[in-house]
């Protein structure tokens, strides 16, 4: 059986999600052996820029016409298109200045969020995709992961504005774990309990709007999972 053809692309962004792929130092050779990598300009100068792709991994947001054109071309070539990272999934850091997420322009088959994406989550999703299984990702918020790690609550106990109750999990509460409040770099959780978050924030003198403002660093205001 021939190996699945794969392309890895970057639109406007910091290239951090492509770098996470290259940062899978222990798994990279196995990953490369499992796929037929045809198009990856960041790492190769021998690319097939037109072939059909079983899987296209696209990071970055759509900022320029060139980005949009590139994205539409990739979509036309790809059986499965995966948005990699918060810029591709939510517009990311430049959302406030007009950057668009991929799904605002084309059909996206899978969103893997994170700024940058988490290595384990990426590798797990890739394995699922290559084996024809639907990838799984948590729908609950960072707050749940933080509780599972038995951390003291930064918001309730220290009064710090933490976006953990609203932000998509998958980072294992990376920031609150070391005492740094969540800034929402992974974008909104689909199963966040908004009503409860609003109540808890307002009981403690913080409006949900103040938290949303913080969240809007990475997500365009009003965007929903």
């Amino acid at each position, binding site marked *: 059986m021939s190996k699945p053809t794969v392309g890895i692309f970057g639109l406007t962004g*910091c290239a951090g999600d492509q770098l996470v792929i290259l940062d899978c130092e222990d798994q990279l050779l196995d990953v490369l052996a499992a796929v037929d990598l045809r198009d990856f300009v960041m790492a190769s100068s021998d690319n097939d820029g037109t072939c059909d792709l079983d899987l296209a991994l696209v990071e970055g947001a759509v900022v320029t016409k060139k980005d949009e054109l590139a994205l539409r071309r990739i979509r036309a070539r790809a059986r499965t298109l995966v948005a990699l990272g918060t810029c591709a999934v939510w517009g990311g850091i430049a959302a406030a200045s007009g950057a668009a997420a991929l799904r605002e322009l084309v059909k996206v088959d899978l969103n893997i969020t994170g700024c940058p994406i988490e290595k384990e989550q990426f590798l797990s999703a890739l394995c699922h995709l290559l084996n024809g299984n639907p990838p799984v990702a948590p729908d609950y918020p960072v707050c749940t992961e933080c509780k599972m790690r038995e951390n003291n609550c930064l918001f309730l106990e220290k009064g710090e504005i933490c976006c953990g109750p609203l932000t998509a999990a998958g980072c294992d509460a990376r920031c609150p774990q070391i005492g740094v409040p969540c800034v929402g770099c992974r974008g909104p959780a689909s199963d966040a309990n908004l009503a409860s978050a609003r109540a808890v924030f307002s009981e403690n003198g913080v409006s949900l709007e103040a938290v949303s403002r913080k969240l809007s*660093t990475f997500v365009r205001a009003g965007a929903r999972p």
Partner: protein
Amino acid sequence: MTRTITVDHLARVEGHGGITVQLDGDEITLVRFDIFEGSRLIETLVRGRRFEDVAGIVSRICSICSASHALTSLRATENAFGIQVSPQTELLRELMHCGEYIESHALHLFLLATPDYLNYPSAIAMGADRPELLKLGLRLKKLGNSIQETIGGRAIHPVNAVPGGFAALPSVDQWIALRRDLQQGVADVETALETLSAVPPLTEFCRADMAFAAMRDGQIVVRSNGTEETIAPADYRSLTNEREVPFSNAKHSLYRGRPFTVGALARVTLNPAGLSDNGVRAMQQLGLSVPSDNPFDTFKAQAVELASSVECASVAVQRVLADEALKQEPRVTIRPRSGVGTAVTEAPRGLLVHSYTYDADGCITSADMITPTAMNAASIESHFRSIVMAGAGDGTDVLTKKLEMLARAYDPCISCSVHLVQTRNAV
């Protein structure tokens, strides 16, 4: 007869850049290092943001240099507020910086540049023939990432470095793991230097007198036409003199009307005292003599700094584990005040400037960030010009390959270079 050479998307560099050269007979009518990366208006995005949010936003300028952006940002903020951090914080920041150098240089040396010299289109293709070489590069790269993760809390876009210090300290187990990794790293560097010194002689097609700029003892030093000048960090504009150019989303920098080079080659030229003993030995082993007139010597200079950074990190970790066990320090109290704070540091690719103006509430009113690739852009173009002048008789394929290799030799970080300006490319 007119001839145009175009590279639409430069491969094996970070971000979206291209090359355009036009010739009319032997006359060069156009030389451009095109930067297509969209503007993300980062300098505008931080306006109005409070000081504690700034480093986390600006690190997103670039993934490879995210630690440098975060650390430079923290210093600029601390300078604005008159905060002095503890020696322990300085040590940890230095170590995090070493981790970034190791990762960035290993990435460039083994995954992006070496394929040029060994005639492969990619490290992946190179790895099929020489798996030990790719694995060595990946191991060194991983070492850099492990250091950054341990100290910074994440390899890309660090979360643990905060204004005034660090949120949490690594555990003893983490330090012991780092010491073990670094022992392997010191051995790997030896193998790497042997391997890299056997890489075929670097291209000679682009020799030219270069101006260099680098940090030395907290000051910017610039060497141009054989003379040196020292510039205080706060006066960085007299070095960079940024101007917008019509074809690029990045501004260009010229010192006294002349392009200058920043990065590994500038550092080993202007501040050799910054190298560890192993770094100095690596310089001899690789036959790198400075000042160099060959931009491809950046490859050697990066290998030298890789050796130096691994040794410095190793010494620092041993210090931590020996007698100076880290202690949980009380958080520095930060009292915002209005004013300007500037920091100039050495990112892996060269000088990095962050300069912020704060209001009395600790919110940014204006920000200026100048990255190494923005500073190098004019220099890259002047080298393009010399390559084309010397190689006007070359076929288009040969000339294109030379231009691409030159651009890659500079290890450009194109996301980094994109500035505030909106131009026709960004429409």
